[in-house]
């Protein structure tokens, strides 16, 4: 089914068609326009926490991943101010955790790293927090390295809505927020998690990883070696659209 061309909105001056119920983000990506995003994975429900996908709709800021598309809206995304804000948000994420890309197995496949590149980040700008956070390596198959968690909440949502296990939750406030595991000891080994769970497959960074797979994909074949994240995520989104709505 082709999109209803009478229902469109303007994105950076370009007319974007949309289907009923689509978000601004979905319509933009389907039309081939990349909007930077971190906490949203199109395969799951959005929850608008990272604010990277913020756009200006009729003069006011909204998270595009949850903002419904409405005919005739005037949306701005690729502006100097918004991109500057996205860079600052990304820099804050980088300094709030301990992200050592050179030795991280997720390097080349990490959405945070790839987004930083796509936004043209030159440095972290802000002073590093160097927080003290625990690594939970207790599970034979899965490792949770909180140093790298950006609190996107994907594992929490997926464990609750898809796996129906509620293994993960967030606790604490503000800068002290961390991811916790539902088990008597607080350790993954004693939780109901298993390597087949969807919740452990979609961490955008190297926080929730499968053991034994580190560095098995050589440089040159890692996800963002093939294409930068702006191209890759649009291509993936469009392939998904074709699959579901083609």
């Amino acid at each position: 089914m082709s999109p209803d061309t009478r229902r469109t909105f303007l994105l950076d001056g370009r007319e974007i068609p949309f289907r009923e119920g689509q978000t601004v983000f979905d319509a933009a990506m389907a039309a081939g326009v990349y909007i930077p995003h971190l906490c949203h994975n199109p395969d799951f429900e959005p929850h608008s926490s990272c604010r990277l996908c913020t756009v200006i709709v009729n003069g006011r800021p909204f998270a595009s991943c949850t903002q419904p598309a409405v005919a005739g809206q005037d949306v701005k995304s690729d502006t100097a101010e918004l991109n500057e804000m996205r860079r600052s948000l990304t820099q804050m994420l980088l300094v709030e955790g301990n992200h050592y890309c050179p030795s991280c197995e997720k390097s080349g496949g990490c959405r945070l790293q790839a987004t930083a590149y796509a936004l043209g980040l030159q440095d972290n700008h802000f002073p590093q927090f160097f927080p003290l956070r625990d690594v939970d390596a207790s599970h034979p198959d899965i490792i949770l390295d909180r140093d790298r968690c950006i609190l996107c909440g994907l594992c929490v949502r997926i464990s609750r809505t898809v796996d129906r296990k509620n293994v993960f939750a967030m606790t604490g406030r503000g800068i002290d927020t961390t991811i916790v595991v539902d088990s008597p000891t607080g350790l993954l080994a004693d939780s109901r998690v298993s390597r087949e769970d969807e919740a452990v497959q979609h961490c955008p960074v190297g926080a929730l990883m499968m053991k034994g797979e580190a560095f098995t994909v050589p440089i040159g074949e890692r996800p963002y070696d093939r294409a930068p994240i702006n191209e890759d995520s649009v291509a993936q989104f469009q392939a998904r659209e074709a699959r579901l709505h083609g």
Partner: protein
Amino acid sequence: MTRLLETAAHPRALRRVAIEPLTRVEGHGKVTILLDEQNRVHQARLHIVEFRGFEKFIQGRPYWEVPVLVQRLCGICPVSHHLAAGKAMDMLVGARRLTPTAEKLRRLMHLGQMLQSHALHFFHLASPDLLFGFDAEPERRNVVGVIGEHPELAVQGVMLRKFGQEIIRHIAGKRIHGTAAIPGGMNKALTMVERDALRRETGQMIAWSRGAVATCRQILDANPHTTIFGVFPSNFMSLIGADGTLDLYDGGLRARDAMGATIFDHVDYTHYNRYIREEVKSWSYMKFPFIINLGDEDGWYRVGPLARMNNCDRINTPLAEEERQIYRAAANGGMQHATLAYHWARLIEMLHAAEGIERLLDDPDITGTDLVVKGEPALEGVGVIEAPRGTLFHHYKVDENDVVVRANLIVSTTNNNQAMNEAVRNVAASYLDGQKLTEGLLNHIEVAVRAFDPCLSCATHALGRMPLRVELVDAEGRVIDRMVKGVDGVCGEG
């Protein structure tokens, strides 16, 4: 032997000559020479700051990060650290024997590293010293001088280095800080296209390496003082193949004394700490390893090209073996003790690396795709390799959750620590005793230290010149003379 350096009765009453290479990014060194009242050299200390904190940093991290993380230890030989750690990780996953392809890829990568490291050292750092002599004007005695007067040598150096880096890039994805070794094997096969591209170059690389050995040999022959400069007896340690063949990637530990007598042989390197212990000294960040049964005074040893060439019974590539025989004949079949013989030995290894690379590229296994094996996991892993600068030990303990709880590294330059002190003392005793500081005298020390190819960035400064700060301090601690040698090689008042 060590005590000679350490037993000044009243060190505070000694005059002190401090030669301090200016601090650079990756650790720095400083040479202190303590003189007695008669201006005789009494003590020599080479202070080196490096690798601090790494063993702590790695604690609490999952073991599979280690081979990648350790590459950041040293900007000069990241591949050696990567492979030594990789070998330790093999033990952790119970990979007793790698697949033929994985082992050969690692060896190829290692020889690529050896070739590029030795090429850089000889053509850019050592050749100015050898070609122009110790006392040549500083404007000449550097790599720019080599390019001016021996342009073909400079070009060959660049091309050999580039070839080594190309090998590394094809295997690890990047020229530096790539990924290749994973626990139990390798992460990428070499394609036929990559193999063929590399193989086209090997003939030229072998020819240039052969020429470099000959040039070095001729320079040493033509300058008899090179055979008496910095000559001192020592023990030697290296890995060795099962039949006594030179092996840079694997084997048992062999140690021989100054006369060539065996101290230990074919020792399983996972038991290294039954044979070697590290001593801590209050004045140095770097430890002092020694052979346990010889004691801390006499048990120090040299590692690196000189040790390997002295220790091995043969080389398994024909051209390098020919050169080894000439090298051994020059020492009447015994051990070479001259500091500058390091350069000669280094180039024979470079030739061996070039030949070995060609042989591996001709081996059908090299393009195989069976890359990883696993076995019964273990909680402790040791990996030892002959890095360009000498024997390199990596030792890790992990807990049952795969997290590193303890790490111990003995890097090549640490193995050579006492030997470098001895070289400085020896050279200073011969050339500085009772004399006023001159640039030429400082150069002699610099040349002696550089022969070890220590992994100090100050020693491998871009143009091969070590910036030095020299202070002459009297017994009361007053500075009575100053001399600064800048990166431009020009000396002046400090």
